[in-house]
Every structure is written in C-alpha cells, then in structure tokens.
C-alpha cells in the first residue's frame, strides 16, 4: 500500500512486543457478529492509476476558469497570484494542526495575527477572528453572537432580503432550535431600507444588511446601522472583500459586526469550498466572539510571540456554555487570503476592485443597449448587476453555453417574481473581447 510503511517483519516484531498473536487479536472488544464486515468497495489502485482516473473525472467538468464566465452570486473567478498556492503548499503550514502548542506554531499564529489585522483594516473594524467556515456560517455566528450580546433577552433577527439567499437559509438552519424568529426577508424581495427599518423593534437582537448586496448594488448601510443601534440591536453588515479595495468599509459606517465570504481573496472556486468566512467586530464585543483569536504576548525571556487567546470562550473548555461549537477556523484559507492581500497590497487590491468596477459597467452599458434587455440601475453597483432578459435565464444560459460562454446566475431560482432575470458578474479576468462576445451572443437571443 502506498502510504503504509510496515514490513511483515515489523508487524511480527511489534505483535511480539504487544504480546498478542495476530493483528486480528487486537479487535476482540468489537462484537464478533459485526467484526470485519465485507465491504462493497473496489480494490486499491496504484497512485499512477488513481491519478489517471481522477483526471478523467475532472475532464467531465467544464470549469469556469477555462471559459469566459460571468457567473458570480457569491463566488468569483478572480486572478490568483502563483505565490498564494506556493505558500499554502508548504508542509509546515499545510500539515500542521490548530496551534495549541504555541512554541512550535509561531508561523501559523503570526500568519493568523496578520490576517486578523488585514481583515480589520479592510473592513474598517477593530478586531477580526481567525475565520469561520464561509460567508454564510459567519452570518449565522453573528446571530449567535448578537443573541449573546443582548443576553438572550431579544428574540428577533431581521435579515434584508438582498442578503445571499443561501446565507439566509443557513441562518435558519442554525437557529431552528434556538427559539428565535428570523424575519425581514419574507415579504418583498428588494433592498427596501424603509420596510427593513420598520421591522426593527425592542425585541430585535440583530439586523443584517448586505453591502454590496446579492444583486451587486452598493447602497450605504449607515441608515440601517443607525436604526438598529437606536433600538438597542446589533448591526451586522454582510460585505464582499474585493469591493472593499474601492469602497468605504462598513466599519467606517458604524457596524457592530462585519462578515463575508473571503473566497475572492486568492481562493480557488473549487465548486463551493473550502472557502473563508471572515468575521470582524468591535473590541467591546470580543468576549462574545466565537472562534479562534490570536493575540500578541511575550515569552518568559520577554521576546514577542503569539498565542491563541480567550480560549475559555470556546467549546473545549466552556462545553455547553460556549457561544458556538466551532472548533476550527479555515486556517489554510486564511493564510491564502493573507498572502493574497500582502502581494496585492494597498495599491493592487484597489486596482483589482477598479478593474472589476469598470469592466462591469462597460458590460452593463452594452447589455442595456440591446433590444429586450434592461439593466437594473436603481442603485449604483460594484461588479455585478441584475438584467431583465427577453426570455427565461435558463434558456439564455443554454444559448450562451453553446457559444462557449458561462452566463450569469438565474435569479428566479431564489426570487420567483424575478423570472427572466439574470445576475451578471464581471471581474478583472474578463477581457473586453469576452464582454463583447457575451453581448454579441445575448443579442442573438434578443431577436
């Protein structure tokens, strides 16, 4: 077997040291009737054969990264600098565990500390944790935290309907046993601030709004934040990190919690995971923050070093009193994001964000000019916009696929009244030629 080192001689000598006659004898505690079942699985392959088989399976996919793609909706096809992958492949990072032994984990710990600092800077917040599983679970953990900040006395969570539908679904999964009411997104499917604010009351633990929202629109969340805080509720903003290369961050607008999906920061699409849920908050709330936190300290010689801190909040010590059951963060993905943010840096991320913005606006202008198409311009947008099509989005996408283009996200999947609407995302990797080809292909369906 590829990864098992023992020779027959090793096994015999080891059994003798243990004092049993055979390997089978080690399993006598296992009920005999169920011991050593016949498994209906294939025989093992050599690495060469396994690689070939997996390559054949991979070839049955048509990956977005290999085609002109305009699909976003929470996962984006951005350029990933080569250095990102080379760093995260280093065995010292990749094959290490959670840094419980700080003396031999300073690499992971310092990298997380830097990640926390970069996320705080990007979001305009004071503190970020070491990450959650993805953007959706970060939002669910924000609900947990808001429930804890309001001491369990408030039972209502108000979510904007313009938050990613799957994030809202995950919040409902998480809260199904908690006795909370999740509302705000049940009637009306637009980002109507007035009706959202009207639902905030003195039973509201948290209000969440998206900026940019699921439709790519960028409307300042300051009004919702202020309304939430006036009512004594926690104000949470779901954001998109590449857009923050250009946009004023939610922290500058007073948000209590800022969460989002960090996939755009150097992490491959990988059919939905592993991704990176970032989570930032105010210092005053840090003791209610779920998940890992790294802090700076000194060692016994007075030299600087880093440790996991506030661990007593966590499940392994607090057990049933922990804010969350979360054990891990997305360590390697947080490292990828740190490398990405470092190598892009102050100027590069701004440039990426501007490229996304300009190219998306170019695409929107062209598509808006086609007969039978109209772009939703009710609010400014970043790199994604909703288009009303002359035919159902699924049909249009089939046509685009025939032209070798991956089209946008079919909004009728989540918003039934948005039939014939598609969400089109444009990033820095889309060339003008690709956009022109998209427009040309769309013009064929408009006829």
């Amino acid at each position, binding site marked *: *077997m590829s*990864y*098992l080192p*023992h020779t027959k001689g090793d096994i015999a000598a*080891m059994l003798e040291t*243990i*004092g*049993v006659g055979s390997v089978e004898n080690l399993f006598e505690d296992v*009920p005999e009737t*169920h*011991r050593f079942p016949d*498994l209906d*699985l294939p*025989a*093992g392959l050599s*690495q060469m054969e396994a*690689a070939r088989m*997996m390559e054949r399976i*991979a*070839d049955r*996919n048509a*990956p977005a990264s290999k085609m002109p793609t305009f699909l976003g909706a929470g996962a984006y096809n951005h350029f990933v600098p080569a250095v990102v992958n080379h760093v995260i492949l*280093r065995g010292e990072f990749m094959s*290490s*565990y959670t840094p419980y032994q700080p*003396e031999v984990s300073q*690499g992971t710990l310092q990298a997380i500390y830097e990640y926390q*600092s970069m996320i705080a*800077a*990007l979001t305009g917040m004071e503190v*970020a944790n070491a990450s959650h*599983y*993805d953007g959706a679970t970060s939002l669910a953990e924000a609900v947990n935290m808001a429930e804890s900040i309001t001491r369990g006395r408030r039972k209502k969570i108000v979510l904007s309907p313009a938050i990613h539908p799957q994030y809202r679904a995950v919040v*409902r*999964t998480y809260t199904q*046993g908690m006795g909370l009411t999740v509302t705000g997104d049940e009637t009306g499917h637009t980002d109507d601030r007035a009706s959202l604010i009207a639902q905030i009351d003195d039973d509201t633990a948290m209000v969440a709004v998206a900026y940019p929202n699921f439709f790519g629109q960028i409307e*300042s969340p300051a009004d919702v934040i202020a309304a939430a*805080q*006036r009512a004594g509720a926690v104000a949470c903003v779901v954001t998109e990190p590449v857009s923050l290369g250009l946009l004023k961050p939610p922290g500058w607008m007073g948000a209590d919690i800022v969460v989002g999906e960090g996939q755009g920061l150097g992490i491959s699409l*990988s059919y*939905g*995971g*592993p991704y990176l849920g970032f989570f930032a908050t105010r210092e005053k709330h840090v003791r209610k923050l779920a998940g890992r936190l790294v802090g700076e*300290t000194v060692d016994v010689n007075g030299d*600087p070093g880093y440790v996991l801190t*506030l661990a007593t909040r966590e499940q*392994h*010590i607090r057990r*049933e009193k922990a804010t969350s059951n979360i054990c891990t963060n997305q360590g390697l993905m947080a*490292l990828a994001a*740190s*490398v990405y*943010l470092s190598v892009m840096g102050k100027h590069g991320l701004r440039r990426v964000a*501007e*490229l996304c*913005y*300009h190219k998306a606006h170019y695409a929107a202008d062209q598509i808006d000019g086609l007969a039978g198409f109209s772009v939703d311009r009710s609010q400014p947008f970043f790199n994604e916009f909703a288009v009303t099509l002359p035919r159902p989005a699924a049909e249009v996408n089939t046509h685009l696929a025939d032209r070798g283009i*991956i089209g946008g996200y079919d909004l009728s999947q989540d918003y039934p009244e948005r039939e014939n609407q598609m969400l089109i995302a444009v990033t820095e990797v889309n*060339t*003008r030629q690709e956009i022109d080809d998209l427009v040309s292909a769309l013009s064929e369906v408009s006829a």
Partner: protein
Amino acid sequence: MTEPLIYELGSPGRRGIAMPDPDVPLADLPADLVRDDLDLPQVSELDVVRHYTHLSHLNFGIDNNFYPLGSCTMKYNPKLNEDIARLPGFAGLHPAQPAAMTQGALEVVHTVQEWLAELAGFEAVSLQPAAGAQGEFAGILMIRKYHHDRGDTKRTKVLIPDSAHGTNPATVVMAGLDVVELPSDERGNVDLDALREACDDTVAGLMITNPNTLGLFEEHIVEVVELIHGCGGLVYGDGANFNALLGIVRPGDLGFDVMHYNLHKTFSTPHGGGGPGAGAVGVSERLVPYLPGPMAAIVDEDDDGRPIYGLHTPEKTIGRMKAFQGNFGMHVRALAYMLVYGREGLRQVSEMAVLNANYLMARLRDTYHVAFDRICMHEFVIEGKVEGSDVRALDISKRLIDFGFHPPTNYFPLIVHEALMIEPTETESRETLDAFADVMIQIAHEAVEQPELLHNAPHTAPVARLDEVRAARNLMLCCRPIPAPEVYVQPQASAT
C-alpha cells in the same frame, strides 16, 4: 528567532503584483462611497515569499516529524491528493454552474457519499457539513427534527458521557436541547447503571464516541444502543475516531442512527493549521429525509446507460449547513485517498493504526501509568507524571519539542489527571515509534534527575513558554491602529 510583521516590511508605494490597465472605458466612481485609504502592506512579491517562508520555519507539521496528537489523527497527507485537487477541472469549477457542466464533480461527490455510507454501514451520507463540529450539529438537528415531526416534543435531553469532547455539549445547546452527563465506569466504558437510570421518554438521544476519547472500544456498545433505542431515543456517533474502524466494524451495523466523519482525520485531507475540515454526516434509513442538502444524486442515465448526476435536497431536510455544496476540494482529496487504498487497504489502515498505538503503549507501559490499561484502539492515554518528580504533563510535552517531536494532546480527556493522549496513526514506521518511545523514557529519567530541564522546556523552539495571562488580560488582536475618528462616521445619535 522572530520574523517582523508583514506590515513592518516593504516601503510606501512598493507593489507586489502588477495588474493590467483597464481595456474598457472608465466609468464614474460613486464618489461618496469610495474609500480614501486602504491600510494593507506595501511589499514586493519576493518580500512576501521570504516572509512566509520564514514563518513556515517557525512551524511544525506532519511533514517535519512525528505528530502524535491524540484525537486529531495526524496521518500523512498524500501529495497526490493536493495535485489532484488543483486540476483545473476541479479547482476552477464554479459552484453555481449547471449540472451539465459539472458531471465530474457530481460524480466525485456521489461516489464519496456512497463509499462513506458503505464504510460505516449507513443508508445515506451528505457531504454538506464544512467540519466535524458542523457534522455533529447537523446530526443533532436531525434527531431533534425527527422527534418533532412525530409530535414527540418532550424529548429534550441528550445524554453525553463525561469523557466526551467539549463540542458535544456545545452542539446540543446550539440545537436548543439539554445536556445530561453520564459517568464512566472503572474500565473506561459508559456506566450502564447510570445510563439505565437516565433512559426515559424525555431522551432525544445519546452522543457517543466509539472508540471513546480514551482510545477504548465500548465493551457494552450493543447494550448501550439497545437501551437508548428501547426508550425511543436515537444514537449519535461522534466519528472523530473512525480511523480505528475502517473495515473493522460498521457503526450502522451496531445500530447507530447518525455519525459524522472527519475527512481531515480519517481520510487524510490536510489540517492546514486549523482547517479547512470536512465533516460528512451519515444516517440510518429513518433519518435519510432529514439530511442537509444539496446532495449529489443520480437523476437519469444517458444512452449508454451511464449515470447522469444532479443535485438533490431531501424532502424534510434540516436545511443547508453552508453556502453551496460543502468543502468540495476535500471531497476530491478523500476520493483520491480511498481510491489508492481500496477495500483491503482501508482495513489495513485501521489495523496498522491500532497496531501502532498498542505497540507504543507497550513500549511506554513500564515508564508511565496507562490510564485504562487494556488493549487500546488507535490511541491511548497515559498520565503525564513521573514517580519521584514534580513534573506535569505540560512539562513532558514541552520537553518533547526539544527532541523534535510534536507533543501529544494535553489535559484531555478531562477525566484523566494530567492526561497525555497519544495517537501515532498508521503512516508512522516502527523506527519512528521507537525513537519517540526512547525519548519518552529518557524524559522520565530527566524528570527525576534534572526536573528543571522539563520545567523550562522547550529550549530549542523559536520562542520559550509564552505568557498566556498577559495575552488574555491585555488583548492585542490587531497590529494596526483602529480607524481614526475623522473617517469614522458616527451613526446618527439617538434622540437622547
């Protein structure tokens, strides 16, 4: 040996990566929403490479040396899996692409679902959960919903042995249920009398780790399952220790109703310094309708009789655990791993993991007190104490670092005083195990002859013991100044 922060490197105006100029006309930026400052590093690509290379040198992974961290299954993470997960056909696939473009990915997910179900004797498996704790949460939510759907709302209690990992009780509370702790008996099993006492019609279920966190197979597992089923509860298996059971016994055959799998333990996907994990969840027939979705399913077949795959969400699902389809990159790695081992090989994985643990325990038995001295499974717990010395488990752990080994798990499970939990895994050779055992024995001598060597350890690590009290009292969680007041827009003041 310290490395400056990335923010301390570089120079204002320095750039790492050049991006092209726009090839489209420029649009007007939304002036009132554009930020005037972005506080990120200003470094070259080489600055970045050297910085992270230096940081990696301050770190310890399985690739460095033996990592016997109990309950974490730090086995070798095959390089092949990394290459395969990076094939553009997998890594470049967008999660919202239509099924016609993702047949290969759906085949991977479906195959992993089927094989995991077969390995553990379950009816179906969902790969939605992003980590073990999420798989566990999904499992308890399913148990809750199963009872609720039958109108059986008085079942609010979940029984948990005192040896359990802290996630178990934390999960139960997140699901809105109540924890009842069960004691262990003198052989490290669940105390059957206490269990019998606790079983009534308010029990939603039992969470059990088998082998348990002492590395012991529950000797009364059949009775335990019967008792819980007898009072109408369901049995949740914490699959953290599934590395001991591949081809040995199937939890589903023992009557377990639900179990999560840690792909990052048993199926070799890398731990990555604390994630990403992947926590598939498997269930018996009665819980299939409640599984989290979407899952991969065969929806049709083509003209050649080959399956056509699609996404499917079970009818009474507890919902989705995360956005999109689970940690797909980890599913690819797990499949590559299972393909290489196959039916016979996977059984050998568990056999060799258990052989290695028992061998190491046999080598250490005369020097350290083994907490529950019987044949163990894939790990065992010793007491980190030495006769005639005041050293503690933590001192022994830190001294191991000087010899180039990662310490075992300290102070867990809680029911063993000064616990050191050792899990060698199957990928370690006899020479490595012997080298570790020799060092452990040497440390026991040092503990008596030169205890200060242990108290002050480690001596060779990049930093000495760190002041955790200072870290927690004077929180420094971010190296950047907080936003200056002039850019911080105060929300409109309330009407006070």
